[in-house]
């Protein structure tokens, strides 16, 4: 059986994520989510404060200044890029720092069996 490379898997996965975000931007339910619904019914919502960054360029999963039909998809792609780069970048830095620290013991950073 041919094994899919990690690169192919990750690229495919990111493409699937973009498709999911595009689909979601068009067809996601606009109803309040479970917490918001319960909060409204049980009286928690009275205390809700406006978000400090509610005027941000992607606030509410809408890209400001972009046509309505595309705005959600653009915001989704921005979020996918941001989460991928932040998670991957953070872990890359942690990994490099870890291997520097353990440089005098070959394989010291590995937990593998």
């Amino acid at each position: 059986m041919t094994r899919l490379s990690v690169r192919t898997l990750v690229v495919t996965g990111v493409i699937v994520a973009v498709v999911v975000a595009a689909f979601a931007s068009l067809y996601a339910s606009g109803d309040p989510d479970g917490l918001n619904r319960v909060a409204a019914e049980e009286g928690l919502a009275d205390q809700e404060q406006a978000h400090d960054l509610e005027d941000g360029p992607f606030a509410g999963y809408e890209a400001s200044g972009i046509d309505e039909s595309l705005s959600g998809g653009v915001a989704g792609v921005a979020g996918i890029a941001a989460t991928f780069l932040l998670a991957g970048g953070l872990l890359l830095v942690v990994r490099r720092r870890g291997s520097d620290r353990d440089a005098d013991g070959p394989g010291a950073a590995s937990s593998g069996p």
Partner: protein
Amino acid sequence: MHVPDGFLDAPTSVATGVVALAGVGICLRKARAELDERTVPLAGLVAAFVFATQMFNFPVGAGTSGHLLGGALAAMLVGPWLGALCVSVVLLVQAVLFADGGLTALGTNIVLMAFVTTAVAWGIISLSARVLPRTAASAVGTAFVAAVVSVPVSALAFTGLYSIGGTTDVPLGALAGAMVGVHLLIGLGEAAITALAVSSVLAVRPDLVAGARHLLPQDGDLAMSPRSVS
């Protein structure tokens, strides 16, 4: 289930912020040993996929929707430490870039949606690895159950925090009942998505599914070595 600003009082929000920071620190330390050429991009993918999937609010009964939290999926794919980090990154990006989830509630949201969900899911994953037959079907079933349980437990944890630092006086029994009820339904949706995603990765690269490592033949070659790259 993103908690906005104002639901919890300042002391509780500070406390959850401290717990979130400490927890992320612990996760980074624990995850460091697992980082290699495969897990780093895979964790990036998990974060991106959880973000994208969270955009998809599916209906759960009249006038209510829900979305994936992602802790069970992340734990299943990259393990609990990296998994909790991936979901934390998603919550940070959502709070800052998308104004989803309050800034003062970021710690609360990380505790509830990253830590509680991955911890519950990993507990179920570890348990079922010991008792279930070692098949791909078991792994997919485990992912389903881990997802379906993790969401209402997270909702119950919110109720617990609200009982400590909630800004309104509400009957806690009613709040707990309402939260668990609706999040059980959301958990079923999350479970379907999680099972689908996990079975997709299992089909092509079972060795990359952290929650299914025990299924692999112990022949060494490519499966178990975190250093092998392809």
